[in-house]
């Protein structure tokens, strides 16, 4: 399907996704579509399967059954094209504490074989406001600064799809606000965002659509009208 046709292009297309860990079914037949440029919040109680779904989309976890396509490509395309177009921010930073901000980002930029990695690193460091701490070891940064560094890492290769798994976890209110502002800018840039959060109002504010996972099942999927409405649906659908 071409851009601009009646149906927009799917950034993420998940069909019948099942993920089992031994006898535990973490995801039980998930069907989910996110259009390119859309921003979606994924809510659900602890253990609902949000992180598992994000890890499957990021090709960190192999599905037990079902199909995932990102920008029309199967995850395991053999060339890493999907990974080249996907970024992930998690509550873990994926950074090395003993290396500085710049060293960590340069390492990542080289793994992605970016041209002129030093310039690209300087660009994202400025974007997340870490210039004054760029030579400091990551372990000396506060949780908020480390999360900004993690965002810089995820943005290094200019991904079209940004997966955000509980990115506000452990952040104080001002650090969370700053991160939310940056995510709003990314959404306004036209990137596709998938955000998991327990913070319904913040998640709803950042998203065009929302979905709710409960016990590995997708129990709601719709447009965000207001955060109050999202909260109401969340309470209804996640009742035990």
């Amino acid at each position, binding site marked *: 399907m071409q851009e601009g046709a009646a149906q927009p292009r799917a950034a993420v297309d998940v069909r019948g996704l099942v993920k089992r860990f031994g006898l535990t079914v973490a995801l039980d037949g998930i069907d989910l579509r996110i259009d390119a440029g859309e921003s979606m919040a994924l809510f659900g109680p602890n253990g609902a399967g949000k992180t598992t779904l994000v*890890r499957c989309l990021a090709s960190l*976890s192999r599905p037990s059954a079902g199909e995932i396509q990102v920008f029309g490509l199967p995850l395991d395309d053999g060339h890493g094209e999907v*990974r080249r177009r996907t970024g*992930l921010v998690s509550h873990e930073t994926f950074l*090395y504490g*003993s290396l500085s901000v710049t*060293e960590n980002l340069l390492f990542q930029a080289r*793994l992605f*074989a970016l041209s002129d990695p030093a310039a690209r690193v300087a660009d994202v460091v400025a974007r997340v406001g870490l210039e004054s701490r760029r030579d400091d070891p990551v372990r000396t940064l506060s949780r908020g600064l480390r999360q900004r560094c993690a965002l810089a890492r995820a943005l290094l290769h200019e991904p079209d799809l940004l997966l955000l798994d509980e990115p506000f976890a452990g952040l104080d209110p001002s650090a969370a606000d700053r991160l939310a502002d940056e995510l709003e800018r990314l959404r306004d840039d036209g990137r596709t965002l998938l955000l998991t959060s327990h913070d319904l109002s913040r998640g709803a504010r950042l998203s065009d659509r929302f979905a709710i996972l409960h016990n590995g099942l997708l129990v709601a999927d719709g447009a965000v009208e207001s955060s109050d409405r999202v909260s109401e649906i969340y309470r209804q659908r996640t009742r035990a």
Partner: protein
Amino acid sequence: MRQAAWIVRKDLQHELRSREAFLSTLLFAVVVLLIFAFAFDPGPADIERVGPGILWSALLFAAVLAIGRSMLTEREDGAIDGLLLAPMQRSSIYVGKACALLLLLLSTQLPTLLLFVVFFDVPVLPATTRLVPLLSVLLLASTGLAAIGTTVSAIAVRSRSRELMLPVLLFPLVSPLLLAAVESTSAALAGDGLSAVSGWIRLMLAFDAIYLGIGYLTFPALLED
């Protein structure tokens, strides 16, 4: 494979900064050598008989510390996921980690060998029949240790009882390699040269190839959920 080289560089950068694995591994090996030196005090005649066992006991037990650290750094704050997200063959991660571990092992084993020579008054000349064979055995055995150690470390680090899991998995797997290393070292200390133990050398080469093949093929699956 270019990415593998960046992983080696990153691991060395990390080690130069922290020196955690280098210092603990070297210190452990030195302590083991000292204990044997005081306990046995072997004369020149005994060293050909007990020397290889002393040397490889020190090297193997010390290597376990370095092997254990190898994948642990990748688990801290989910760093391994950062590697898995990169658009590269995931076997490149194995190659990079194994090469970095090999360099770390060699960097601790060379001073350990020097101390072994000094403590036990081991003759290493003429170099062609003693020192060169000794260094060759060290390189071959270390390659095997790094190759299987990286794989085992990736398995053990996912386990809650990783300190127990690592030696339980590693020691049986490296037994043939260690046996060949001890026999070859014995010949090197006796000044027989490598030609006298070509069978053991071929065995070490074969195990290096097997360990590398297993690691290269299985490592991506070991890292995924």
